[in-house]
């Protein structure tokens, strides 16, 4: 086993620096005063970032799936699977945090909103990805089929999360007639925290994902 980027320390430390910055600025930084939202606008750093991390990890899943179809190396398949698994963790975190936020600002934990239903649908699509993986006993067959499926799943997720809600009326900012966070809500102060927060949470997810990849590789090595 050669040393990979997973063994480097710099990006792990960068992740933690970003997260500490997020926690500090998340509670103490300047935020715009908005009706209804009040202080909950700070959830941008803790709820929206979950979805951003999920999207990045799902993109990694699609990239490694394509890679696997190209080179047929089992390593690419392991990374693809663990990316999807970690992305699901972020997705569940995003759903739960979103439900709490919605309960206090929209009045109910689940409103009939295209963004919410779209994310629920895409979570189910990725749940089917894991069911598909578990259903196939043969290693190469599983890897190839699930790689093809995950490319399809990624496209569907982009449609469900990023496109359909934009075409319909949604309570989320930037959808339907609602102004986007980037219009005036997300002022430059919040941007300076939001982007590091996205980097921090994503890198933390990659770090956690790398553990599982390394352990799976060890297991394979051990059984050979």
């Amino acid at each position, binding site marked *: *086993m050669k040393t990979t980027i997973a*063994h480097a320390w710099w990006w*792990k430390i960068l992740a*933690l620096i970003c*997260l*500490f910055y997020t*926690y*500090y600025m998340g*509670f*103490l930084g300047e*935020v715009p*005063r*908005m*009706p209804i939202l*009040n*202080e909950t606008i700070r959830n941008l750093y803790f709820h929206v970032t979950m979805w951003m991390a999920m999207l990045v990890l799902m993109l990694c899943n699609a990239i490694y799936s394509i890679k696997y179809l190209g080179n047929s190396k089992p390593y690419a398949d392991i990374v693809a699977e663990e990316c999807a698994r970690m992305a699901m963790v972020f997705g569940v975190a995003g759903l739960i945090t979103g439900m709490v936020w919605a309960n206090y600002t929209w009045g109910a934990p689940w409103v009939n909103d295209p963004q919410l239903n779209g994310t629920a649908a895409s979570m189910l699509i990725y749940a089917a990805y894991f069911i598909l993986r578990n259903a196939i006993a043969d290693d190469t067959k599983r890897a190839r089929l699930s790689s093809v499926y995950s490319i399809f799943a990624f496209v569907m997720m982009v449609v469900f999360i990023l496109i359909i809600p934009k075409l319909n009326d949604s309570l989320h900012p930037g959808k339907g007639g609602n102004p986007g966070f980037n219009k005036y809500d997300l002022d430059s102060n919040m941007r300076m925290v939001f982007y590091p927060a996205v980097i921090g949470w994503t890198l933390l997810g990659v*770090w*956690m994902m790398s*553990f599982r990849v*390394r*352990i799976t590789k*060890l297991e394979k*090595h*051990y059984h050979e």
Partner: protein
Amino acid sequence: MNRIISKTAVLTLSIFMSLHSFARAQEIEMADTMRSEGKIYVVVVIAALALTILSFYMFRIDRKVSKLEKEINKR
């Protein structure tokens, strides 16, 4: 004449008063007291502590996996 002046004075005054109260109603409530009292810093310290402990644990797991990898490499 005097009555007209006093009436307009009352009217303008009442308009200003209502404008003032309207402006106050527009003010959006934020946790300003919490920040002025400094209690929010306690929350920040505790959240940062939780993150410190978690990151410490993450580094421990990382070291342990690295050790295992080295051992398997030796064999």
